[in-house]
């Protein structure tokens, strides 16, 4: 969900990352504490309003929760069957609203600002010899490599198809692993060259 920042000039875009993360924490806590269908209704209105304040359309809000469609489709009837419609609305509603709110934080906050907050929050870990800067960099790189590895996997899939080896697991896994390791080596060199360890 992070790394999807969309530039803007709304109140939410201008708000500090720490405040937004705190707001997200309070919001999700309230959803978990007041477990009533009406809470979900109020929460939905609140989230839709926040998206509107950030100048995002409901379509953008739907894009944030779309990846969890299968969870919703499976969980809702199961929960209804197990504990009734109210419980289904509460459980699925809490999940969907939390993801939509988290998506809004990501959409309105630069990754670096989010990571700076995380870096500040984990400063006490210095006492147990954990380098907060290193942890933040690790998170950054994790976000960064997702599209790169995704592209790499697509390339390998195309290569495999071009060679008529669609069903070969080895023709898929081996080049993905080799290319990923190669990418990791080049990335490591680039990080050294950019003075990360200096």
């Amino acid at each position: 969900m992070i790394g999807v920042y969309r530039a803007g000039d709304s109140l939410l875009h201008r708000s500090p990352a720490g405040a937004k993360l705190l707001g997200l924490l309070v919001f999700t806590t309230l959803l978990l504490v007041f477990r009533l269908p009406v809470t979900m209704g109020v929460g939905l209105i609140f989230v839709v309003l926040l998206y509107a304040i950030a100048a995002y359309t409901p379509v953008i809000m739907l894009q944030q929760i779309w990846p969890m469609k299968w969870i919703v489709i499976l969980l809702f009837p199961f929960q209804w069957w197990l504990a009734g419609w109210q419980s289904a609305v509460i459980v699925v509603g809490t999940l969907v609203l939390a993801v939509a709110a988290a998506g809004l934080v990501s959409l309105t906050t630069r990754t670096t600002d989010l990571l700076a907050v995380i870096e500040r929050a984990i400063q006490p870990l210095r006492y147990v010899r954990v380098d907060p800067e290193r942890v933040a960099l690790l998170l950054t790189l994790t976000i960064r490599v997702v599209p790169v590895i995704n592209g790499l996997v697509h390339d390998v899939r195309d290569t495999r198809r071009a060679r008529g080896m669609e069903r070969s697991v080895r023709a898929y896994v081996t080049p993905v692993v080799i290319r990923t390791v190669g990418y990791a080596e080049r990335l490591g060199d680039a990080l050294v060259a950019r003075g990360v360890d200096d």
Partner: protein
Amino acid sequence: MSSIRFEEVGHQFGERVVISGVSVDLRESRVGIIGSNGSGKSTLARMINGLVHPTSGRVIVDDLEPARHGAEVRRKVSFLFSDPDAQIVMPTVGEDIAFSLRRLSLHKDEVAARVASALEMVGLPGYADHPAHHLSSGQKQLLAMASILVTEPSILVCDEPTTLLDMRNTRRLAELLSGLSQQIVLVTHDLDLVLSCERVLVMADGQLVADGDAAESVEYYRRLMS
């Protein structure tokens, strides 16, 4: 101009000799290094900012040895790789350029101004909030260039920077390089690109086999490859 001195430099990976006995003093503004694949030219270039250390001899950049003063040397020497994807660290263009400035503890406004200026310099104004992975290969290489230029290095080492670029982007990058005030060491297979250099070294089998002006060295290299 800065001085990059190689004194009897050699490098081995296990039993394999990658570079042997290279001695050269580079003070020209534009230096090219050409050679076939595996000739040792990239290894030589990587020694300039301490990415690779010599196993014999020494490299000295402005009185500093990269093998011993890596951090100080890297503040002077920036490195541009052939694969920009591996060089881009942050999710958005502006954040990636700002990442290069994190050690300088600059005010947010100063960082924003420098990022904007670097983007302007490489011809990507207005791209600060653009996701880096959505850029074309050419634009990614320009972003990688902006990310290193923003630190205002005095030496720029470019290791096959046009390998993944089409003709238009190669020309764009060449124009950008030619307009820079920094000392540039350019490792490339692109013989047209290297013709603009004042001095060109030719590497073969880990040895420096020719060292002269661009026309002479390129001619030598063509004969060597024929």
